[in-house]
């Protein structure tokens, strides 16, 4: 496969530099993003922009939402949330695993799971 080796040799130094820069930026970017992602105690599940569920991060629960591509299952447990299953081809959303900050999106099914503060009057307890 000398053609392959030739092609490999054709890769310039600048190619390598570009590659390394991009890799480093991506990796450090992932750390940065993890740092600034918002945390809170409310999980909002929106489909196509419409709020379907507002759950508490501290209560164990599993819900299913229906989107244009099918049913996405979201699990809340132990103060964290994950997309357990989704009909999207990427399965990027499922791959993200458990998280307690930021958000998870499943674009094909238009599902957005965000973690936020006590949005819109969501209280931690009621006296009365």
């Amino acid at each position, binding site marked *: 496969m000398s*053609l*392959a080796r*030739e*092609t*490999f040799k*054709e*890769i*310039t130094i*600048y*190619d390598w530099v*570009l*590659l390394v820069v*991009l*890799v480093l*930026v*991506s*990796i450090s*970017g*992932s750390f940065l*993003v993890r740092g*600034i*992602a*918002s945390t809170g105690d409310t999980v909002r599940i929106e489909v196509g*922009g419409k709020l379907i569920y507002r759950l508490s991060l501290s209560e164990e629960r599993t819900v299913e939402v229906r989107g244009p591509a099918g049913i996405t299952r979201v699990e809340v447990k132990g103060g964290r949330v994950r997309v357990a299953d989704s009909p999207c*081809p*990427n*399965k*990027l959303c499922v*791959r*993200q695993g458990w998280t307690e900050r*930021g*958000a*998870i*999106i499943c*674009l*094909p099914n*238009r599902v*957005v799971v*965000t973690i936020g503060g006590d949005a819109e009057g969501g209280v931690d307890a009621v006296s009365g």
Partner: protein
Amino acid sequence: MQSRDRLRIAILAAYAIGLHGLERMIPAPLPWLRFGLANIITLTALMLYGLRVALTITLIRVLLVSLLTGSFLGPGFVLSLGGGVASTLLMGLASALLSSLFSPVGISLIGSMAHNLTQLTLAYLLFIRRMEPILFVTPLILLLGIITGMVNGMASGLLLKKLKGDSPEVKAAAGRES
């Protein structure tokens, strides 16, 4: 000129669509890991026949695929179109200005990054108007894009070498472009 270009465009576009379909049929253990093999055609066409041809191929591919899969004018279509056009344009720019610095691999990386960044931006502007989930998922997508960019770039390079070696016409065309 024109008829020859048209022929090339038609054949290459067919290849691109074919590659896309083939890629879709592969039962991937990691369903989200797609190489965007059609981009190999785009890049190769760019290097051999220039930006106009490459752009036309991209447009045809995106249009026909969306019509065939029924996602015409849907979100997938918009994202594919945006990503494809941006990526082709930027690769054209890069190969015109920076071809002395970069091999097809580098150009492909640029195209891949442009493709992904454009798609993320479009997704934000048009579909999910929340900065957070987009930012959150960007590093992962870029990382994947790097891998596919490299793979496609190497494949393009290989293809170019093979083609340049074969026909004198191709050699002449290649000579004209570079």
